């Protein structure tokens, strides 16, 4: 069997998730032993339009981007959303609180940019709001081990397993003191695990970058909010950073 051909593409993002792959260091060699990387603009000059798996970083901001992602979808047998921007819209969605004209004026002032197609933006969309996504690698940035697991599963033709329980489970396993106890507001109770609770383990609250669980334990959360004298409104406000307008995450 020939190795699957993999291509990386990026849209509106910080490219930090592709950087996690470059940061696999020596393990990149293991990766290229099971797949052929045919396009990866960030690190290589060569490019091919003949690929089996398209890995997408970034969210969709403009009609011109939408056209490009549709063309990629047509060519790819499997499409993977890589990282929070692609998978759930991520921080890019914060600006969806306002319309495009409002944010353009805030950043570019009175400059005449409206007849420039590069600025022709609409409220940003996660990739699955435009084309079908087969698999998701969550996180901002992605977790390198999870990425390796997903690629290995795809090569073996298996469905990658993504946790359906909250970050609290992993946080407890790491024996951390609950951040609510330390007076911090943490989104761990409603956020999909899989990051090994990296933020709480480093003393910082979870910001929900892996997306809100499809069925968050509402009663349990209410209990946490009551115990620490916090409101549902405050929690929703905290959710704006990664999960604006997203009530639940898909594909579980």
């Amino acid at each position, binding site marked *: 069997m020939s190795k699957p051909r993999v291509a990386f593409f990026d849209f*509106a993002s*910080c*490219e930090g998730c592709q950087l996690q792959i470059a940061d696999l*260091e020596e393990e990149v*060699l293991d990766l290229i032993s099971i797949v052929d990387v045919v396009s990866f*603009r960030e*690190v290589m000059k060569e490019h091919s339009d003949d690929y089996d798996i398209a890995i997408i970083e970034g969210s969709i901001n403009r009609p011109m981007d939408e056209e490009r992602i549709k063309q990629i979808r047509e060519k790819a047998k499997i499409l993977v959303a890589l990282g929070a921007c692609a998978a759930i819209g991520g921080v890019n969605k*914060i600006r969806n609180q306002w319309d495009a004209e409002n944010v353009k004026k805030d950043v570019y002032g009175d400059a005449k940019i409206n007849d420039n197609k590069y600025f022709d933006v609409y409220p940003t969309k996660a990739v699955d709001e435009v084309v079908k996504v087969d698999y998701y690698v969550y996180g901002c*940035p992605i977790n390198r081990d999870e990425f390796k697991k997903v690629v290995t599963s795809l090569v073996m033709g298996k469905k990658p397993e993504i946790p359906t329980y909250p970050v609290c489970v992993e946080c407890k396993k790491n024996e951390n003191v609950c951040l609510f106890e330390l007076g911090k507001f943490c989104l761990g109770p409603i956020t999909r695990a899989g990051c090994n609770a990296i933020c709480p383990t480093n*003393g910082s609250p979870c910001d929900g970058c892996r997306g809100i669980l499809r069925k968050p334990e509402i009663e349990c959360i209410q209990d946490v909010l009551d115990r620490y004298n916090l409101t549902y409104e405050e929690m929703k406000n905290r959710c704006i950073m990664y999960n604006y307008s997203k009530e639940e995450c898909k594909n579980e």
Partner: protein
Amino acid sequence: MSKDLSINVHHVTRVEGHGNIVVDVKKGEIKQIQWQVPEAPRFFEAMLRGRHYDELRPITSRICGICSIGHSLASLKATEDALDIKISTQSQILRRLAINGENMQSHILHVGYLAVPDLLGVGSVFPLVGSKHQDALLKIVKLHRISNEMSDLICGRTTHPIRLIVGGFSMVPNKKQLMDLRKKLQDSIKPTKEVAEVILSVADKIPDFTRETEYIGLSSNEEYALYDGYINSTDTGAFKDYKNYTKMMQEYIVPQSTAKYAKHARKSYMVGALARYNLNSKQLHPLAQEVAKMFEFKPICFNPFMNNIAQLVEFVHNIEDSIIQVDKLLKKEIKDEKPIKPKKDSGQGVGVVEVPRGILVHDYTIKNNKCTKANCIIPTNQNHANIQHDMEEFVPQILDKSEKEIELNLEMLVRAYDPCISCSTHYLKVKFV
């Protein structure tokens, strides 16, 4: 020369983000040379409106995957300036380590993985596996890993750091971890020198092109400025009124780009490792000075391609400086400190730091703990105009080369700036019509 040129490089590779180069030559006459940045704009400054001051750091970190530590530090400095927070000496030392770690990982990634393939005549680092340069490649990989491990230790994570918070750190490394780090840094000096030798052996491939321009960066009386200092220019000298940074960095908008451009005393200026080297080379640590000497690299150097060598020199400096900073921490016993609380809930603050690609400014207005207005001046935006003017002067000088060589030379020029277009918005393409 009466040739027509039709080169089309759509999305220059091995750079961060998307950019295009358009060159149109008809019968030897240059019709158009354009550096285009059509990256999808992301509107970060607008996103910050209404966010609590604690969230500004994690949000702005996401401007750029490669310089997320630098954005985090500029953000923290702006917030702390606005809310009158003075961080502890220990935090200041740790933040210097954070910035050294980022400079190291970004520079070795750029020099080793993105720029060196051009000097060795290959399309990426992958073909170097199994070649006579495999040994050098493995050393580069090792140095890159050590840089990332240092950032992981100090910041909790290299890309989108976690421990950097308003008022200090959410967690600090322990003594044993610092001692291990010190050993790793010490052990990386030898392979660094060996990598420098390999680069020196192909340094004749670095194009000999110079164009006089202005260089802007931070300078300090105490040290080779990265975390702190005053704004300085090779044309106009020290500028200590940091809150009026827009006098030094005048941004404007051009039609071919979603990124802003900038100018100061001339039509363009350059920021980054070469600018810092040109301004502050005397303050580099001894080994870094030695590596600069190997390349006969002297300030003021007007060859933008030498930015790669300036990055290599800074990499050595960052290792030496990190050992010094770790020793300071070990001498005083590192301790868990609570972050310093704000003295007020409203104010305007500016944070200026040097990040791998140059001087970076965040400027926030905060009212009742929430951000009402933000402005960020990104290094790569300050370089776009200089790239454009370099191209205009470089193309006529290389017009007798083959189309392929011209294309490669222009791509190398762009790559030498190590543009981070995600930061500045994001996009790049060379098109010889």
